[in-house]
């Protein structure tokens, strides 16, 4: 049986039962309604409330944060789902759109390691240290490496050459499967991209990481989301959880509100933080767009999903410092699509030490293993097959961990798996997509308001705009457009 079910007696799907109308007392009109409280939705809501607009933020789950989430388990365990690391830019983003208190908690990881049959290295994951490794460990010339970095650093959104990431690597490091692995694997875990995706999506994200390495948030995801909620309230945002938005109301090509739980609430503008395709095809509905446009949207590819195994260390046990992030594989050579294999040989371990949650009353260690995954591999399993596959995932992960850090397995007293089904269940992303859509989704997201006036999308999309930093920044980019729209609207009314 799924563990979480015992927490909500009386519910059949693991979610808390609905005791009352989650929109009771809501107003009839807001300047802005945001659907979804992921990092993009929350950041957009905060920026626009600070700019003076009335904002209603709705979230179907009882927690805010979307994929930026955590959960507790008996025995004092607390697991972070997507706090493996992000680029330094998150510090500035927190400082500008949230608060100094949040920004001060964004600090660098101490160590990143790689362990696979091709190489075994520790790195600070920045340009200087990667250059050192590429020259000293991989035997490349300094000139070769410098040229590569100059090339990716110079890439920007407006000069997409059509080159794939695989072609980019082949161009600079022909035939060097080991180098391709070093460069690609971590980014594949960070945003689901592969060698087949556009080089520019790689270049932008890779350069963001290479500027200063990998950062984390001290205090845990729960602490960060807690501060964000406080900040949202201070900015005047009306927060409503357990609100399943069913429809975006559209009349004559203009979005004018939402429908949920029997309420129709009107708004000057609507931002959807739900999955891009769900927003267009389900929340608005295909009848509101040209048939041609709907076809194009249907063809947008979603990014892959994930599996994770959460391992809690027994109270009183310690895990000596190993590293923060360990990219590992037992596969002889790098094979980009194989990172999504259901029974794959590659995984990333995140090690969490008590220093990451200084406020916690109990000093606990946790380890989370993540893999990329395809929803299709998990979708049609019977309940029995599903349990068997999850047990296999747990066991394979524990064996891998024990090989890497002997003696750890015996200290673990809680093991639990999440699958593409889990991610779909909690965030309602189509196919449990962990990182939005492939590159082509970006244009559709950015131009949504050209199809439906007053309707905007903010959320992981197009590979570039994903991850904590990408999602939060995209929330601001969308907020800027909405701000412009709402000010024009106010002027019209006046």
């Amino acid at each position, binding site marked *: 049986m799924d563990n979480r079910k015992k927490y909500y007696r009386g519910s059949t799907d693991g979610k808390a039962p609905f005791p009352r109308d989650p929109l009771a007392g809501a107003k009839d009109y807001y300047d802005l309604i945001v659907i979804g409280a992921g990092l993009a939705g929350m950041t957009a809501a905060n920026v626009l409330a600070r700019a003076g607009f009335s904002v209603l933020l709705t979230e179907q789950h009882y927690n805010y944060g979307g994929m930026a989430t955590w959960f507790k388990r008996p025995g004092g365990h607390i697991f972070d789902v997507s706090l493996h690391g992000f680029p330094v*830019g998150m510090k500035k983003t927190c400082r500008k759109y949230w608060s100094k208190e949040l920004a001060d908690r964004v600090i660098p990881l101490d160590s990143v390691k790689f362990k696979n049959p091709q190489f075994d290295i520790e790195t600070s994951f920045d340009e200087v240290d990667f250059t050192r490794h590429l020259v000293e460990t991989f035997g490349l010339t300094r000139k070769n490496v410098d040229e590569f970095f100059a090339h990716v650093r110079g890439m920007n959104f407006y000069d997409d050459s059509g080159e794939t990431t695989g072609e980019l690597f082949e161009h600079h490091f022909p035939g060097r499967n080991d180098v391709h692995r070093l460069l690609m694997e971590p980014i594949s875990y960070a945003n689901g991209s592969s060698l087949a995706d556009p080089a520019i999506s790689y270049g932008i994200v890779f350069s963001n990481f290479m500027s200063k390495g990998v950062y984390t948030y001290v205090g845990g995801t729960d602490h960060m989301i807690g501060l964000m909620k406080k900040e949202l309230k201070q900015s005047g945002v009306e927060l409503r959880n357990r609100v399943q938005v069913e429809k975006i109301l559209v009349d004559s090509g203009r979005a004018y509100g939402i429908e949920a739980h029997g309420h129709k609430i009107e708004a000057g503008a609507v931002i959807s933080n739900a999955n891009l395709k769900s927003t267009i095809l389900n929340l608005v509905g295909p009848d509101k767009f040209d048939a041609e446009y709907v076809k194009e949207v249907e063809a947008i590819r979603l990014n892959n999903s994930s599996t994770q195994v959460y391992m809690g260390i027994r109270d009183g046990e310690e895990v000596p410092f190993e590293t923060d992030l360990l990219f590992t594989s037992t596969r002889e050579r790098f094979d980009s699509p194989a990172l999504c294999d259901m029974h794959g040989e590659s995984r990333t371990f995140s090690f969490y030490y008590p220093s990451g949650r200084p406020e916690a009353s109990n000093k606990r260690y946790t380890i989370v293993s993540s893999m990329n995954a395809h929803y299709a591999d998990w979708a049609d399993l019977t309940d029995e097959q599903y349990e068997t596959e999850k047990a296999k995932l747990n066991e394979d992960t524990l064996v891998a961990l024990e090989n890497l850090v002997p003696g750890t397995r015996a200290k673990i007293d809680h093991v639990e798996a999440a699958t593409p089904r889990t991610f779909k269940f909690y965030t309602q992303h189509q196919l449990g997509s962990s990182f939005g859509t492939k590159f082509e989704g970006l244009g559709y997201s950015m131009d949504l308001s050209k199809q439906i006036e007053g309707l905007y999308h903010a959320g992981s999309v197009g590979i570039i705009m994903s991850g904590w930093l990408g999602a939060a920044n995209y929330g601001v*980019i969308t*907020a800027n457009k909405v*701000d412009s729209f709402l*000010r024009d609207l106010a002027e019209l009314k006046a």
Partner: protein
Amino acid sequence: MTRDEIILAVKDIITTIAPDEDLDGLNNTDPLRDQIELDSMDFLDIVMELRKRYGVQVPEEEYGVLNTLDGCADYLLPKLEGQELKMVNA
């Protein structure tokens, strides 16, 4: 607003956005990005602040004009005619 006032207005906005940067030595001719640490998100914030404080709309295609302080002044001079300088960080 005069040209000089517009430059003051823009500097005041940058102070809000990048409170840790020292703006005393800024010249009007070199790209702002070369003088202080400003990224594309910061320029977006400048655009939002201009809209909020002065009601000026800078269309996305024209963000490039804000690259230098002189560029800001040239572009904003006709748009801010008759408006008062508002200093938030004075």
